[in-house]
């Protein structure tokens, strides 16, 4: 490493690895992981999100989890929270649906209304 530009490159890559701790997050995906969510396959849903996001190199998206939300009949339930926009809740998620949500909603910014079970707070 010989210049400030080299340092900057290392920094950007390293910041990527630390993004969970940073504030540089555009979209937060919250997977409902209560007992019923897990029973309905929430772990698979979460795994798929993590994989898809990694494959596409989406650096400003994080995946986290929450408990039971009381929507048992629609589990697995996932919230997409985007800076400055209403929260979107998707229900009855499967790995297949996750892939579509990643492409449509997260990458292209179009809500997949077929899967939406609630919006706003």
């Amino acid at each position: 490493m010989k210049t400030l530009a080299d340092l900057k490159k290392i920094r950007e890559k390293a910041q990527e690895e630390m993004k969970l701790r940073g504030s540089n997050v555009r979209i937060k995906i919250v997977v409902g992981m209560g007992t019923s969510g897990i029973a309905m396959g929430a772990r698979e849903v979460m795994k798929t999100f993590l994989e898809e996001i990694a494959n596409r190199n989406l650096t400003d998206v994080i995946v986290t989890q929450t408990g039971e939300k009381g929507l048992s009949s629609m589990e697995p339930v996932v919230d997409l929270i985007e800076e400055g926009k209403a929260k979107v809740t998707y229900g009855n998620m499967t790995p297949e649906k996750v892939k579509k949500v990643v492409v449509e909603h997260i990458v292209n910014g179009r809500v997949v209304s077929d899967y939406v079970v609630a919006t706003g707070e």
Partner: protein
Amino acid sequence: MSLKRIDLLICCGSGCVSAGALKIKERFHEVLKEKGMENEINIIETGCMGPCDYGPVMVIYPEGIFYKTVTPEDVSEIVEEHFIKGRPVARLMLSDDERTFSVQKEVPFYQKQIKVALANCGYIDPESLDEYIATGGYEALGTALTEMTPQDVIDVMKAAGLRGRGGGGFPAHIKWQMVHNIQDNEKYIICNGDEGDPGAFMDRSLLEGDPHRILEGMMIAAYAIGASQGFFYIRAEYPLAITRIRDAIEQARGLGLMGKNIFGTDFNFEVEVRTGAGAFVCGEEMALIHSIEGERGNPTPKPPYPATQGLWGKPTVVNNVETLANIPTIMVKGAEWFNTMGTQTSKGTKVFAITGDIRNTGLVEVPMGITLRELIFDVGGGMVGEGKFKAVQLGGPSGGCLTVEHLDVPVDYESLKERGAMMGSGGLIVMNDEKCMVNVAKFFMEFCVEESCGKCSPCRIGLKQMYEILDRITKGQGKEGDIEELQRLGESVKMLSLCGLGQTAPNPVLSTIRYFRDEYESHIRDHSCSTKVCLDLMNFNIDKSRCIGCSLCARKCPTNCITGSREEKYVIHQLECIKCGNCYDVCPVNAIDKIPGMHPEMKEYRAKLQAQKDLDD
């Protein structure tokens, strides 16, 4: 790119490690492996997060949930509930009477704090150079080397007005300018990591928690003064800090941040780590220099100062760890920003180590000028247990005690000095009303007697005499005139000693006399220690009206000095009592009292002995 969704930051500062943090970490690895979740969770060891009293502590991102006093048994629950089901475990969160604080930044302990030196401590993995760089690390050095002259760097420091954090409060830029101005192709920069003040552990935490920051600060200083060789002098009691700094140096070398032509410039730098071997006086800069040279660590008279004749007779700057820790941030954010914090004469923030009878013991960083009240009651969470606030000792063995009446004093170099205390390295020992001030003063004096290097007689002999007088007073053999004698000795030791140790060692005694003279007087005149700490000046007594005659105390007494019967009740034969306190602890109906003052029987006996002795003489 990683698949991780949680950063689990486990504090692995010495405090938390001593409370079992490493076991917790292992347990997390085990449980996560069982659940097949290793790939989802980053386990990161960080440096000290501050609230050592609650160790082991951890913070879990992205939410920033803060857990305290975690045990290995709690780990499965955290994984099951929090990591899998997303339900943070409220039981492990910090709470006060009204609420539970889930997120780290809500915790009151952190609220009045501004972290500059400690910015990365507890936030990054200290063993990862990448994480340090991610927080902006080495940018200050790069900018200084490629875009600034050494004089520019010194000018920034001058505008910032950073004063040494090692105790003296001497402005950093003045020393730097002096050494910069001297033409010599051999100059040295030394980082003083000897931290010996009892009650201080900020330097350890910085070295352990953010070693690259100290290294970067040192290299900026080296560039400014024209040194190409540096030394870390770290006390041997800090093995982890030594390892972390050594590793950091190697990592920096791996990336070309150490060695020749750093950042493509003609700045070359090498650094070595030297360790102490258990001598407090080696924190004094001349003593430290002699110790690095392989000599006994004796201070030598100043002048000459290290700036003109330091290590191997060459111009040398010695800076404290925390001083260096401030430098990279000042260079990046500028002097003006630094000047927005602190007071007219004391700029910036200061790290304090809060210990003693206080709820949140640990490490905090606050702007200078904060009042003691805010520091102790807001940040520190107030007193722990029943006792009321009585005094706070600032500046360790060279500082002094302040009392309730000083709670609104701003904490800066000058205000403290005016009142007989000292900023020192930033140790803050809080004491409740169960502490005897004469005894505390004696303790600090004992420390200084043991640590005096013995080179000059006022310090070697004077301190010993002071200690002996204090010892007598706490044993009920004080005399009229002792207080005055202590003051006289104290003033002369201060005047005549060669180095800072002797020059400040009488402070704890002088300040306790100043603010707690009545306590000294009652020890001497009434043979009474109101806090019942000095065993010769208190007694145990069985209250017959409460005693049920169970004989438990008599059976537990190691000297068999309690006799009696169920009917007669029990009594203590005072002359044989060794004040072990067993009886007090075991009495099922709390019929035994601790009473301040020497028991009349004992007084009489001692007077008789004295009379006999006088006769013999």
